[in-house]
């Protein structure tokens, strides 16, 4: 089950709970096996599996609750620069992993998921677009916003620490 560990990690980040993450992964495999006929050969299998998991999450109670608040920022706004932060203000070493994890945790689901797909799963923009069922342009602008939100959240965590 090569995607098992990655799917579990993603599920746990989304649900923020071990039992719920296990349920999500189990349901994903059941749905994938049942619906394998709907998988189109030649398309991306990984994106298909992540899409099932994500859709399962979004329709779960935690998913519905997490996405109930819709951010007012539009995805189609222009991309944002990195801001005034420099390597001197955001220095991340191993000891600050927990701070970074807290910062990721604090992000809204739509920013958290796109960051994880891009940085952790190293999906291409095309794969992310397939997984999240959004256009490529939206992938780029949302990713940019997610990174900005992460930097801001990290700054807050660093100040708190």
């Amino acid at each position, binding site marked *: *089950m*090569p*995607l*098992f*560990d990655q799917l*579990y*990690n993603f599920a*746990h*980040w989304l649900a923020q709970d*071990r039992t719920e*993450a*296990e349920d999500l*992964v*189990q349901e994903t*495999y*059941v749905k994938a*096996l049942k619906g*394998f006929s709907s998988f189109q050969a030649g398309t991306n*299998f*990984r994106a298909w599996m992540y899409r099932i998991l994500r859709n399962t999450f979004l329709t779960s109670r935690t998913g519905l609750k997490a996405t109930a608040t819709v951010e007012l920022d539009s995805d189609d706004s222009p*991309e*944002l*620069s*990195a801001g005034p*932060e*420099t*390597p001197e203000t*955001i*220095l*991340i070493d*191993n000891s*600050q*992993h927990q701070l*970074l*994890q807290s910062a*990721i945790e604090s992000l809204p689901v739509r920013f958290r998921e796109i*960051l*994880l797909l*891009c*940085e*952790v799963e*190293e999906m*291409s*923009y095309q794969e992310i677009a397939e997984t999240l069922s959004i256009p490529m342009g939206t992938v*780029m602008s949302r*990713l*940019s916003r997610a*990174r900005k939100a*992460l*930097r801001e959240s*990290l700054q807050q965590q660093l100040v708190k620490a």
Partner: protein
Amino acid sequence: MDHWTAKLETYLDGELSASEMRDLDAHVRSCPSCAADVLSRLQLKRAVHSAGKRYSPSPDFRERIRKSIKAKPERAPMRLWLGASAAVALLLMVTFVAISARQQQLLRQHTLSELADLHVATLASANPVDVISTDRHTVKPWFQGKIPFTFNLPELQNSEFSLIGGRVAYLGQTSGAELIYQIRKHQISVFVFQDRAVGSDLGSTSQPRKELSFNLESWNQDGLRYFVIGDASAEDIRSLAELLKKAP
């Protein structure tokens, strides 16, 4: 935000076209502000990559899923279903094998890209080395207590290479040594990590290969994994690798 800044994220995500990548590469080398920006973003990118790998499934859960997947064909009520399930299982297996091979390749690619990034970050840094010395008897002992292994450095008296210094490098959260050598105007990084800690089947290259247009040679020796990377010619990379292999 200028024309270049707008493209930095796409550049670091490797999503620009080859010609745009080359243009931005050239720009970053000549623009300190963009170089600092790239470094900052790269650092955050790497940190998120490793911090994001946070959760592992429990062995019990893994076993439960394995069993439930295995049990599916047995529960199928009809012969037709058995055939269909077997076909689905076979297709899944083939897909999994293909994905697994692809992931192995991606992992290898990722390790090499990360090394290229580390090399670039070192060159871009205002303080590229933590121990500055051309004397291997100064550089080698400096690593004592900083990395969990020791290694040998070659005598360079009769070669064109000179040692500039060294620093501690991290790859996949494991510490190792980075040594900077110079030949003519080219700087070359030599990375040494414990082979088992690097974790991917990197093999050995009999010929230097290209990685992000750098020349790179890698091999395993006495449980250590060596990488020699730089923009020097393939012959120079080769010569330095040979010197390191023969180090007393």
